């Protein structure tokens, strides 16, 4: 009986382990736990893929100290909702860096996903995606930021991103003269 019981317990734990195998628990810097399917995590994030393969996943929640709960929620949201439609991050060879691979325009749902974010949340998400090595999420968020810069004068960009102008007047003039055509109408 004891053996059976033990067997049963072992089976139970195995079942739990099998159930666990589908998801990964991630822990944000402020201690909140999020679950994400293991397959999606491995596909979308090179870092998580490496951790899963290396067995350094903690069942009680893998500590991601660099990522706040809000950003992690967005990451998990992105993974869970759209895992299936995204090609594996692992398939994108790391040797092809972002500036040689052709850029694929974000799809409609991806646009919506980043459009609803606040300014801060967007940057938190960029940093989180960068930390986790999520190429596609980086593409989407960076695309969003570039959209915010496109066609604007430097003054307007500074205003949007709160960039402090630390040029002297002469330096600024020099830069503008150097490539005057780009500053044609501002």
């Amino acid at each position, binding site marked *: 009986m004891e053996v059976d019981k033990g067997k049963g317990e072992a089976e139970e734990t195995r079942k739990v382990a099998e159930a666990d195998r589908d998801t990964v628990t991630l822990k944000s810097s402020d201690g909140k736990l999020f679950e994400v399917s293991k397959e999606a995590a491995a596909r979308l994030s090179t870092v998580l893929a490496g951790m899963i393969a290396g067995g350094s996943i903690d069942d009680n929640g893998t500590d991601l100290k660099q990522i706040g709960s809000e950003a992690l929620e967005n990451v998990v949201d992105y993974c869970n909702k759209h895992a299936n439609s995204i090609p594996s991050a692992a398939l994108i060879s790391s040797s092809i860096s*972002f*500036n*040689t691979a052709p*850029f694929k325009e974000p799809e409609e749902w991806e646009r919506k996903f980043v*459009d609803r974010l*606040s*300014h*801060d949340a*967007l*940057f938190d998400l*960029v*940093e989180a995606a*960068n930390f986790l090595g999520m190429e596609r999420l*980086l593409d989407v968020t*960076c*695309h969003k*930021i*570039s959209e*915010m*810069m*496109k*066609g*604007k*004068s*430097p*003054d*307007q*960009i*500074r*205003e*949007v*991103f*709160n*960039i*402090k*102008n*630390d*040029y002297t007047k002469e*330096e*600024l003039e020099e*830069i*503008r*003269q150097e*490539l*005057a*055509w*780009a*500053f*044609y*109408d*501002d």
Partner: protein
Amino acid sequence: MEGGSFDEVWEEPPEDDLDNPMEGGSFDEVWEEPPEDDLDNLLMVKVMNFNWRCSEVQLNKTRATARTAGRQFDGPCGLLGLFPLHSHSVSSSDSKRGGSGGAVETGARDEHRPVAGISSAMAHLLGASSLKKRRAGEEGEEIEAAAAMAAEEEDRISELPEDLRLRILTLLPLRSAIRTGALSTRWRALWERRWPAPSSMDLHIRPGDDPEELLRSLERRGERRIDRFSLTIHPNKRPLQHHRVRDPQRFLDYAAACAVEDLHIDAAGHFVSMLSTFIFPPGCSHLARVFIRHTGRVSFRSFPCSDASRFPALEVIHLYLVRSVDINELLWACPRLQTLDLRYCDVLGFQGVINLESSGAHLRSLTVAECNRITRLDASRATGLRSFCLSSAQLPTYNIPATASLDDLYLSLRGQNCEPIKHWIQALPNLANLTVLTICSVALRGSNLFTDPISQNKRGVSGGAVEAGAREEHHVLIEIREWRRDEKETRSWGAASSSAMAQLLGASTSKKQRADEEGEEIEAAAAAEEEDRISGLPEDLRLRILTLLPLKSAIRTVARALGAPLARTEVLRSLERRGLRRLDRFSLTIERSRNPADPPFRAPQRFIDYAAACGVEDLRVDVASHFVSWTWIRRFTLPPGCSHLARLFIRHEAGVSFGFSLRFDAFPALEVVHLHFVRIDINELLWACPRLKTLCLRRCNCQGAGAINLMPARAHLKTIESVTVLECSGITHIDARKAHGLRSFRFSSAGFPTYDIAGTAKLDDHISLRGQNRKPLGHWIRALPDLANLTVLTICSIGLRVCAL
């Protein structure tokens, strides 16, 4: 009399000339005499100054406008009141425009609108204004919200790691990427690294380089993204010895495959430059700027069907000396076009019609210059047009939307037919915002626009108002005569500006010039006794006005002495640095080297090409010591595009050719031709100079010319005043029967040529000839015209000895 003062310069014994080449400076004596222009000359046609750096002009202009906006205009002011609108910074002097002989300068002034209205309009131009910011905010609410939030918080984007910022930059078009460089020091030059190096390629193929090798190295680099691609094929004098660029198209294909955004191609030296063809491959969707020069054919056609947005990002197009281009195919495919600049392009589109219908919405600047086959320019949808320049030897019709608010309008149409002038004046759009209006046309003479007597008051409201297009509350002033009366003052500006220009250009002024300036200052003092408000203007304003004056009124020079052989490449390089900016006078003197060890000077042609490309008006070349000067092999070529040339002095060049088949009107502004020790086909030159006034040939080799024909078929040499043909071989006859305006006729020859002068010509000065044959003597004495006005008659002939006068 012009002829008189030339004597001082030219009557030196030519034998001495060989040994002591005349200094370039001594020409200046000729130039001191004040030009006596009448109204006809005033309307004389010159060609505009084409600015090579449009964007900078615009930049300067916008800034200048901003300054002006703050200024209150009170009350009507006339001539002087125009000037504040031209308030450009000194830096704009290198962006001078105009320089046109008949520049009819007009300012459209806005006197009655409240100043606030102006400043808001100006602010709109500036783009950095609150108005525009607000608009930008309206584009997306979340951006505004984001901005509001960000205002209280730190700068998140600059805090991002560099590779993330680079990643963002790769998603921006080149122009936006460059602009980020102005954000803050953390962004400075970051964009330059956004693609794997090199992100900007500047390829030069010089004689001796192997283009195949270059192509192979490009292939090794692979098709990675690139910002800028520039290809220059330098002239190759010996195509048989050096590698030839067999297939320049492959470079273009490579650039297109790398999704280039800024493309420059200059195939000046391609061995079949005029036959080379560039076909834009598909996949140029990132292209933002295109500059193409010196090519045969450029094709933008796409197969199988035209794609209306093949060039969705293309904003700037410059085509220069392109023989044939299917421009409408291109225009159809670039919906975001902002600047179109076509110069010296031969065949454009079907039947010379340029159609901007499909790409007009964003068009801000349109320049079509010296594309003489253009018959029609349709920009009726270009409501945002700010700058419009049209210059042509013909009279094309054009269509601009009446709602376009132009800052800058330049028309120079030199066609023979006066009929369409009413059309093109009436077709002018709304001129309320205009700061510079320049109209040059021989057609103006035939029109009755300027028949009103010109008022004598200094306020300068004169000429006739252009009625069409000018709304009642705006005054459009056309000022013609006032400036002319102020000739002396003008010359004093010339002195001021020449030193300023010399500083700007980094060019050394010769001592002779300085002497000239002193002379002019004396004149200025004399003129100062009158009320002189115009000289009181700030220098940059006066410089600006000067650029609008013809050369005669504003003599500025860039004299370069080519003494030491080492300096030659230096000079060429400094010229290259200067760029193709407008040039009034270019004087090239290559002195005889006393030291036989000096390397011979092999490339005077490049100087000529440079001067021509700068639209030079006064060209002097003295190549006394050129090592093959007398071998009859050396030729130099006046490239196409010399339509500004007003004076041409050439000495000691073995042969002069024109690099292309001259057509009527090739030198529309050429008035003075002095050729000394030159071999030339003189009749070909005369055919191309409809406005020639002075012709002076000394010791030229006109072998094969036979008769000099001063009355070609179209009889367009009516203006000729002075003919001097001395000791030229190969001339048997001078036919000047229709030169009724002839004032000076000098003819000296060891042979016994014949000549015909119009019986009605009133000669001041007549020198004749000597020869062995007595027979024609009676002929040429009888052929003398009306001698009533003659002041000097010199007849030297051994024939006189036997002739009973």
